[in-house]
Structures are given as structure tokens and as C-alpha cells.
């Protein structure tokens, strides 16, 4: 039962991942810059900021897209330069496994508690 729930959840999350497809280049730039933290601002994304850093970053991303880099390649390039801190969506790795996993574990746990509580008849 637990396994099935988990598989379903993973499928749902994967579906969400793959659903992000892009129409045109501008939309693509906007999408990427919304997912980047403006490092010199207080909690603003690169997309929302008009600081020098953000403006240069937007320009660089436009160049990178023109050169044929994919979204992930751009993120990886920037992560290498600035660290994980720059992206708003942390990738799943050993550092962030509980970030993504804990709410799901609690959800399953809560579900089991409810099933135990009520009388099924």
C-alpha cells in the first residue's frame, strides 16, 4: 500500500517536471530568470530585479540560449559559479532529500493514522 502511494506520488511529481515546456525564447528567458536568485538583492529573483547584476545575468542567459544551451545546462553553469544558493528550486540530492521527502513522508504517515482511527465497515 505504502509502495503504491509512493509510486503514484513520484509519478505525479515527474509529470509536473516534464510538463514545463516552452513556447518561445523570451518566455524561456523569463522562466529561467524567475528561478534564479538575485544574489545582491534581498530575496528578489533575477527576473524581478533591475540591478546591474540581474541585468547582466539576463543578457548572459539570452546569449547562452542562443548558443543552444538547455535550461539545465544554464543552471549547472551558474551553480558551478555561484553555488546551489542561486537557484530557487533545489535539486534532489543527498542534502535536499529530506526537503522534498519529509512532507511526503508526513502525508503518508497522517493517512495511516486516519485509517487506523476510523472504523471501516
Amino acid at each position, binding site marked *: 500500500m505504502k509502495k503504491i502511494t509512493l509510486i503514484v506520488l513520484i509519478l505525479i511529481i515527474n509529470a509536473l517536471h516534464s510538463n514545463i515546456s516552452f513556447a518561445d525564447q523570451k518566455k524561456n528567458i523569463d522562466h529561467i530568470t524567475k528561478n534564479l536568485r538575485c*544574489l*545582491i538583492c534581498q530575496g528578489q529573483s533575477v527576473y524581478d530585479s533591475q540591478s*546591474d*547584476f540581474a*541585468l*547582466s*545575468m539576463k*543578457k*548572459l542567459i539570452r*546569449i547562452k540560449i542562443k548558443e543552444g544551451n538547455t535550461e539545465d545546462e544554464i543552471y549547472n553553469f551558474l551553480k*558551478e*559559479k*555561484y*553555488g546551489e*544558493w542561486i537557484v530557487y528550486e533545489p535539486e534532489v540530492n543527498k542534502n535536499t532529500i529530506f526537503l522534498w521527502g519529509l512532507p511526503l513522508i508526513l502525508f503518508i504517515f497522517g493517512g495511516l493514522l486516519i485509517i487506523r482511527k476510523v472504523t471501516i465497515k
Partner: protein
Amino acid sequence: MKNNKIFYFIVILIVAIFIVLLLGLKEEKNYSLQPETKKLNNSILLKELYSGKNIFLNDLLLENEINLINIWASWCSPCKAEHPYLINLNERFGINLIGINYKDNLDNSKKFLSDLGNPYDEVLVDSDGTKSIELGAIGVPETYLINNENKIIKKFVGPLDQDDYEDIISLIKK
């Protein structure tokens, strides 16, 4: 019995959270750089300030020596403050110093150098700031120490001060 276990678990959990948050209070909140040991990207192409020639940044780095890259702009006042240190580093210690002129008006930057002295062996122009991003900069001024394997071994964000200056000198002498 079972309740006791839950009780201890919760108390320990709360105390653990408390300790972590207490330690968290001491952490630096703003962007801080992690020690960088990555190789410099070897395809960064920039224009030279005076001649306008295109030059690869890597070609300017001297082998088997410590190099210094300084990102600056004439409109940035902290850059003026750190300028004497750069002049000293270049003239007294003969370090290979490459300046990257960040988002600047070329006439202003030339005037800046003729007024305050030119500490740079070469000055490259990054007119839209994208090359500095490729180097991993967040603004001006920033100074990078590059070792003999073309790796950034130290980043100084913000103007150099006396401590940084001595730091650089001790690293050169090593």
C-alpha cells in the same frame, strides 16, 4: 510505555531544533563565497581597453606565477579606495594584474586610469557585465587570485583593505 517513548522523542526533537536555530543565529545571512578551486573558463573573450583588440582572458595569465584579476569601474567609488593597494601590488611586488572594466563608459575609465595611475598590465572591457558573470562575480569591485594552474584560489568581494592586501602579499611570497 509507548507514550513515554513518544514523549522523549518529542522533547529531544524540540531541544535539537532549539540548538540548531541557536547556531543558525550566528550564520552569515548574505551571499558568501565558498572556496573556489574550479579552473577558469578558457573561452572568455574580451576587448582590450586601448587597442580594442579581442583577447582571450586565459592568454594573459602568466604560467607558473600567481595572477590577480580585478573587476572595477570608474563609477564605483569603493574602487577608488582600493586603487592604491592595486598600484602597490603591481609596482612593488610586480604581480601580473589584469583589470576588467565593468559596465563603464570607456572615456571615463581611461580618465580614471590617467588620473589615479594605471596598476594594470592589461585592461579588458566588459561593457555589458556578462563576462564578469561568467567569472562568477556579483558586482564591483572584486579581486581574484589565480594560481599557476589557472584556478581561482581566493576571491575578494568588495574593495581590498589592509588585511586583504597583506593576505595577497603573503600568498605571493609562498
